[in-house]
């Protein structure tokens, strides 16, 4: 299942959040060689904060993380507005009804191909469920050459915000996805998802004995 981790309940998710930052370090710094800061084996950037919503797929609150992603409100500085504004030729969608999705991170040992595609499908379904829950209408994201074609085909309604930049594997492009029930239905059908994937665990749930 995909846990929705927000400021309200994040204190129950210290293990999964730490594991997510560890995986981000292994994937983005060690494997993809992105130039990011790390501290004690964790990748944490200036957009990681209590304002971000994290989606973390795991069996339990202490088990291994299989995939994670980060959703940022666009009413504050975010990655697209600060780092990638040049990718949005026709303006940058932002406002209270818009989130930005970043740091899509499959666990480092995820095999390429079908398992990754399934993971992306589940995460996009999770993003849409969460967006609908919070009344979010649009989600922006930047995708590289590997991710962009996959993310276009999952069934949600996507359009490019500008032409791609860069060459080969470093080619990146900005997109915006519209979020609605019909789109979520299409994504669920495409990935044989028959029930909601996301769970919101309240912060003050009485602890199991």
């Amino acid at each position, binding site marked *: 299942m995909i846990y929705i981790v927000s400021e309200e309940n994040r*204190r129950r998710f210290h*293990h999964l959040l*730490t594991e997510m930052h560890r995986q981000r370090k292994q994937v983005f710094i060690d494997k993809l060689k992105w130039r990011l800061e790390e*501290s004690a*084996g964790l990748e944490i950037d200036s957009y990681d904060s209590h304002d971000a919503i994290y989606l973390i797929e795991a069996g339990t609150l202490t088990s291994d993380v299989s995939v994670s992603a980060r959703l940022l409100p666009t009413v504050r500085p975010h990655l697209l507005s600060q780092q990638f504004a040049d990718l949005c030729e026709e303006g940058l969608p932002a406002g209270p009804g818009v989130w930005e999705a970043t740091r899509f991170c499959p666990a480092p040992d995820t095999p390429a191909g079908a398992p990754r595609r399934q993971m992306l499908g589940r995460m996009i379904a999770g993003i849409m469920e969460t967006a609908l829950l919070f009344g979010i209408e649009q989600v922006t994201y930047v995708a590289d050459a590997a991710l962009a074609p996959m993310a276009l085909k999952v069934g949600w309604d996507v359009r490019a915000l500008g032409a791609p930049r860069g060459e080969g594997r470093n080619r990146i492009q900005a997109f915006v996805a519209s979020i609605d029930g019909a789109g979520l239905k299409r994504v669920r059908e495409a990935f044989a998802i028959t029930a909601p994937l996301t769970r919101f665990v309240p912060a003050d749930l009485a602890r199991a004995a």
Partner: protein
Amino acid sequence: MPASKIALDFLDFCEKQTSAQVIEDRFVSTLQALGYEYVACASHVDPLRPRPGGVSVLNYPVPWVQHYSEADFARIDPVFLAARIMSSPFNWVDCLAKMRLSREQKRVLDEGALYGLSKGLTIPLRSPDVIPASCSLIAGSDGVDPLAMAHVLMIVIYGHGAMHRRLNPDALADPVVLPPRERECLTLAGCGKSDWVIGEVLGVNWRTAHNAIERAKKRYGVSSRVQAVVRAVFDGQIMVDDLTG
């Protein structure tokens, strides 16, 4: 309470205290408030035989500390070894996996894990005395918010410094500073040169070289030139690479 407030309150508290013991207690309770169960902030020596003037804050389980001391694990502890090599904070899982450890070193980790001491985070510390030091932290069952990391580092580095200052109030009063001639002569002595050779290299009388080294020894209050060289290296007045030429 947010981690930033916990950290700033701790710094504020340290400023107002004169007793290292009081800071030690607050140091542990502050880190526990952030979710750490076990704290070991100390020089890399036998925990039951701390050095005078050395910071030694430890709340590891008592039976483990006794066993650790009896088995003399401080001499081979892989966490200490890593902390001496690493210049930035590291977590045990990632860092120790990259080290080639002996069976005895693995035993230290395995036996510590039986007492709940695993998956730690270690912050290497610069200690003004000659013994390397570090602070190891082990999270409790609820874990620690990864966004608190920056505040944890601030608490540990500042707290260690504050405790060290209280334990060594005169440390800053009389630091040894070697004049250039003494440093030159001591460096050459550290390379194994005799008074006569040092005199030749520097173009001075051998007696001048000899006297400069004697003055340096006196400054450090030591009786041999080897001791004086070692002290000057730890002081940072002689660089280790200066001794390889």
